[in-house]
């Protein structure tokens, strides 16, 4: 070091404005974090990472807490419906068909005289299973394949992209009628498999696009120049920066998958009547909507709340993973 002590121009509080045009952007955040606020940590603070910061953020986010509680509740009743419903969803009394609420039957009865409350509770299992498993399958398959195709490009990418084009051309309902009619048994798994098979191309395209964008960023080049391996670049740099659109689309798709199960069940190729699902109930109740709207509204309401909970969860997670929004 030279004798003359160097006085580094210490960063003064406040960031520069990023041009007058983007005044509305988040640029306006300052470095004067309140003590204890994000970034205001003292010297003894543990080094932080994206994930620990995201978790800290989520724990304080009411949207996340509400949606997570709702989802936990849904999963719980999907596993043990008898916890909150004592009846049997298959015990029906045609004499009470389309009746309104009665003591012990708060949601009334459907067209077959079954208790709507019990069926709505028991329907959660099939619907939540289809929604969650199909979404997870689609998101995993689509983002892994899309990520690899976007990252490595070349022949991989060309072949996979053409395959997705072919899948996009298959009409969903017709495909379901053909494929599912040959599958024996009456479980949700063929439906889940069918949705994953037809759903992954959508996520593939989104994942591929966002990986392509992230790949061109200079920070990826910088990591490469440091000698980072492909797996490191993919996991540390590209994945966190391209996961947001996948989360958004996947959580929105979750609702459509539950509805798709309903459609397929209605057409007789999904779950068959001894099984209980919101989809089946919605479709069987829809012809009587004028006489017994409650039979439709309760399972449909349950479906809407489930979808909303997952979308809210997805939004909260996406925001937590973006430090710029903190």
């Amino acid at each position, binding site marked *: 070091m030279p004798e003359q002590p160097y006085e580094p121009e*210490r960063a003064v509080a406040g960031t*520069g404005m990023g041009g007058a045009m983007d005044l509305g952007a988040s*640029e306006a955040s300052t*470095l004067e974090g309140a003590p204890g606020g994000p970034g205001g940590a003292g010297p003894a603070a543990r080094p*932080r990472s994206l994930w620990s910061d995201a978790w800290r953020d989520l724990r304080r986010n009411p949207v996340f807490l509400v949606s997570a509680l709702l989802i936990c509740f849904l999963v719980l009743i999907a596993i043990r419906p008898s916890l909150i419903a004592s009846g049997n969803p298959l015990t029906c009394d045609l004499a009470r068909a389309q009746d309104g609420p009665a003591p012990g039957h708060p949601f009334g009865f459907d067209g077959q005289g079954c208790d709507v409350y019990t069926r709505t509770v028991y329907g959660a299992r099939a619907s939540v299973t289809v929604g969650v498993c199909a979404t997870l399958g689609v998101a995993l398959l689509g983002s892994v394949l899309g990520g690899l195709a976007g990252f490595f490009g070349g022949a991989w990418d060309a072949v996979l992209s053409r395959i997705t084009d072919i899948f996009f051309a298959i009409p969903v309902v017709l495909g379901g009628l053909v494929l599912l009619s040959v599958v024996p048994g009456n479980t949700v798994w063929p439906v889940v498999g069918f949705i994953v098979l037809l759903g992954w191309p959508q996520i593939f395209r989104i994942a591929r696009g966002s990986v392509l964008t992230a790949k061109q960023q200079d*920070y990826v080049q910088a990591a490469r*120049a440091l000698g980072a391996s492909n797996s490191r670049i993919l996991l540390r740099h590209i994945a966190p920066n391209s996961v947001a659109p996948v989360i958004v689309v996947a959580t929105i798709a979750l609702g459509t998958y539950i509805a798709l199960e309903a459609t397929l069940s209605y057409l007789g190729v999904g779950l068959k009547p001894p099984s209980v699902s919101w989809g089946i109930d919605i479709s069987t109740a829809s012809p009587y909507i004028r006489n017994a709207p409650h039979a439709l509204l309760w399972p449909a309401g349950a479906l809407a709340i489930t979808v909303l909970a997952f979308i809210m969860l997805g939004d909260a997670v996406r925001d937590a993973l973006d430090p710029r929004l903190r």
Partner: protein
Amino acid sequence: MAEPVLEVSGLVKHYPLTRGVLFRKQVGAVRAVDGVDFTLGRGETLGIVGESGCGKSTVARMLCNLERPTAGAIRYRGEDITRLSGRALKAVRRNIQMVFQDPYTSLNPRMTVGDIIGEPYEIHPEVAPKGDRRRRVRELLDVVGLDPEYANRYPHQFSGGQRQRIGIARALALRPEIVVADEPVSALDVSVQAQVINLMERLQDEFELSYVFIAHDLSIVRHISDRVGVMYLGRIVEIGTDEQIYDHPTHPYTQALLSAVPVPDPDARERRERILLPGDVPSPADIPSGCRFRTRCWKARERCALEVPPLAVPAEFRHDTGPAAHDSACHFAAELRVVPPGERDADGESSTSAY
């Protein structure tokens, strides 16, 4: 010149142009870099200037092994690094690091500053034992003039100049010998540019760095460089010390380029003579025969279309020992002073000094 640390010879990068969907057929090539030679001495700063599309950034990316050259060699301590892969390549990367142009895209927005600067140690764990990394990161932050307490913050909480300091700290983490800086200040505000330039100069002394400094701003390049190479359409057309290039240019392109730079001195308006080049730079997919500058050159004659002028001391200056005798790829090289001599202060000091 000092002992060379990097020798570049015959460096070429062509991007093939293809046609057809199933059977791709090469129909031509974009000759982004088309035969570049230079040497970088230890502790030296070599500036490379040129307009957009001249291939200077591609050269930078090849030096950092981000792009594999089509032909040619880049020798670091005598070893050709363009043919390396795996472990040997990773070892070389430690010694050649890059500073990027855009401080907004060159830092991962989802990593803390501490993680960004510490990543080099994760990739090369042999450089620093695990327990020592945090201390080193804090030290680096301090070296580039940022508060070490900022290690837990994210890039978006910093201004452009501060981000560029973070990028510089990352490049220095592995104690490289060579730093390739691709337009490191062009995205910054004028008042912040000087801070970053001064920082880079101080670090060069402190860490004994050799710089390849790539920029389009000729004034900044003159300020920081010991030697300067001027690129046009994939080739270096003239190279020499800063005095040779700026005060005694012999290549017509360099002369035109220098004459076009606005000088912050309204009195120079009348004194200056501008060489306005006609037309646009030709496409690198369709480079003119012979001298590639001839289509815009006021000196061009028949010979220029036929013979490629070599980058060497022109014949007319071969026995000259003055500053005009330096490498210049022109058949009709002639000295022409285009930058009006600046008024130097009587005592030779720059008019102001930092406080």
